[in-house]
């Protein structure tokens, strides 16, 4: 990992931990918690779509699987919330592995359509399996996570779980992309056959990163359920899946930091555009189009390029 990346990680992690101490409680903390949760999903998806080049639209489904597994285990099976979160993460990889083995034989548009279909199936199953999931009404009264007697039932308390978890998962992803595995993923994105000719078992790695990516979404889903205390089939909706892909388009598919920046930008927009109600999505779309016009590869890579150009121009002028 580069020095800049490492310093930035420490700064953002500490910044997130110190901020509430400086500003005190407030609505922004609620926003920050949602940023942390959605960032997990976006970072996981960045590994799969951005680095490995496999366009998947199934992360909302895995978010919902994590959320419902945790909710059902804690409300119906009476498991303590923290334990339910952990057990749920044992369920998701099994489902992801089974689905991944099948759909990742497909590439490009076909993979997108297959994962889209899977998302729709999950949404329908959630709506129909009323005895288990509560159907359209969803599940309410999901208990908050409690750790060592401390009940994480406020924005403030939850923040000190969600933020470290997000930043640790982010660190895991950063380490991963700067390793042998990250190199293999980038090679697969560029050309599966050539990657295989140099020893990269592309079929296995694609499934692996699909499972890993699904786990990021599932962890976020589980934590979300216990944070919000209520979940509905909306968690598995296509709109949510598309929102996360928009996040990557906005921040930049090919940089993990882009995922973080994209999530922060869209979540803040979402919260502070609430007065515009139904026009919110139109504004999102506009922001995305304008970004794509000026920075086709996303905000972060775009700004990096612009900064490089400015530096060169300055250096050229000084000569």
């Amino acid at each position: 990992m580069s020095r800049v990346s490492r310093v930035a990680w420490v700064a953002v992690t500490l910044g997130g931990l110190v901020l509430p101490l400086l500003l005190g409680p407030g609505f922004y903390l609620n926003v920050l918690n949602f940023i942390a949760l959605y960032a997990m999903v976006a970072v996981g998806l960045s590994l799969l779509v951005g680095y490995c080049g496999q366009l998947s639209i199934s992360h909302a489904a895995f978010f919902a699987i994590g959320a419902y597994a945790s909710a059902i285990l804690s409300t119906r099976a009476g498991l303590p919330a923290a334990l339910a979160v952990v057990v749920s993460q044992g369920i998701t990889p099994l489902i992801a592995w089974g689905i991944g083995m099948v759909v990742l034989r497909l590439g490009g548009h076909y993979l997108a359509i297959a994962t889209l279909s899977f998302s729709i199936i999950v949404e329908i199953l959630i709506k129909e399996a009323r005895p288990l999931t509560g159907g359209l009404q969803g599940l309410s009264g999901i208990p908050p996570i409690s750790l060592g007697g401390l009940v994480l039932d406020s924005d403030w308390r939850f923040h000190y779980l969600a933020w470290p978890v997000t930043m640790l998962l982010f660190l895991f992803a950063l380490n991963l992309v700067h390793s042998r595995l990250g190199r293999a993923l980038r090679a697969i994105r560029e050309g599966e056959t050539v990657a295989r000719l140099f020893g990269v078992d592309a079929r296995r790695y694609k499934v692996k990163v699909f499972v890993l990516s699904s786990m990021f979404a599932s962890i976020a889903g589980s934590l979300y359920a216990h944070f919000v205390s209520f979940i509905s089939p909306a968690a598995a909706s296509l709109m949510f899946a598309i929102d996360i892909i928009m996040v990557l388009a906005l921040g930049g598919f090919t940089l993990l930091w882009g995922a973080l920046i994209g999530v922060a930008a869209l979540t803040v927009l979402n919260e502070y555009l609430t007065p515009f109600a139904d026009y919110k999505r139109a504004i999102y779309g506009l922001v995305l189009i304008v970004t794509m016009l000026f920075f086709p590869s996303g905000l972060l890579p775009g700004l990096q390029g612009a900064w490089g150009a400015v530096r060169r121009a300055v250096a050229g002028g000084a000569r």
Partner: protein
Amino acid sequence: MILALESVSKAFAGLQALAEVSFAVAPGAITAVIGPNGAGKTTLFNVVTGVFPPTRGSIRFLGRDIAGLPPERIVGLGIARTFQHVHLFRTLTVLENVMLARHGHSRAEALACGLGLPWARREEAAVRAQALEYLDLLGLAGERDRIAPELPLGRQRYVELARALATEPRLILLDEPTAGLNEREAHEFGEALFRVRQRGIAILLIEHHMGFVMTVSDRIVVLNFGRKIAEGGPPEIQKSPAVIEAYLGSDDGRD
């Protein structure tokens, strides 16, 4: 014999790309495959490296049948290749391209990499050092941090060779290594191939540049329309009527 093909055939939807091709590659030798366009030369490479399985026939490498094995297994057994149209990873630096080829010689998986375990970091540092050695060997150390498309074609061919060497092969397949190179560059590339052969690595190459083929090859196999029409040392091949006919066309005007 390090590689032995026995009656290898490959058909694509009715097109017979290879028909009953048999020949062998001696260890430490440079063997050339020549033939007019469409003779099945690149198909032959794809079948040997596992890009697709042969329709029929056996391919024995170091005594074991590798026909139909997946490419990632075949490279692990010791066959590496380069491409007619350079296929370097464009989003990887020159160094990373060569490091990628060490994939089969390193073990850290997702968990070890993601957690940044000390042994995985040491392994990555070792991979980097090994890759640098291969770049040094071919005089590419100064270009390590550039991305492939920035380099002139001649240099890209060396990077492909370095990448192939980094897999620690016993046999390298070179698909038209001098395509797009001028005479001097082709000559230099030939010198590099002799250095590769000195390391005990056998070479099988496809080539259209006849001067180059006749200078570097120990043995030549000639394909036409997917069939082997001749095999021998450079002097025999130059005199072979079948080869002359294949290249110049006979009087009954096949063109």
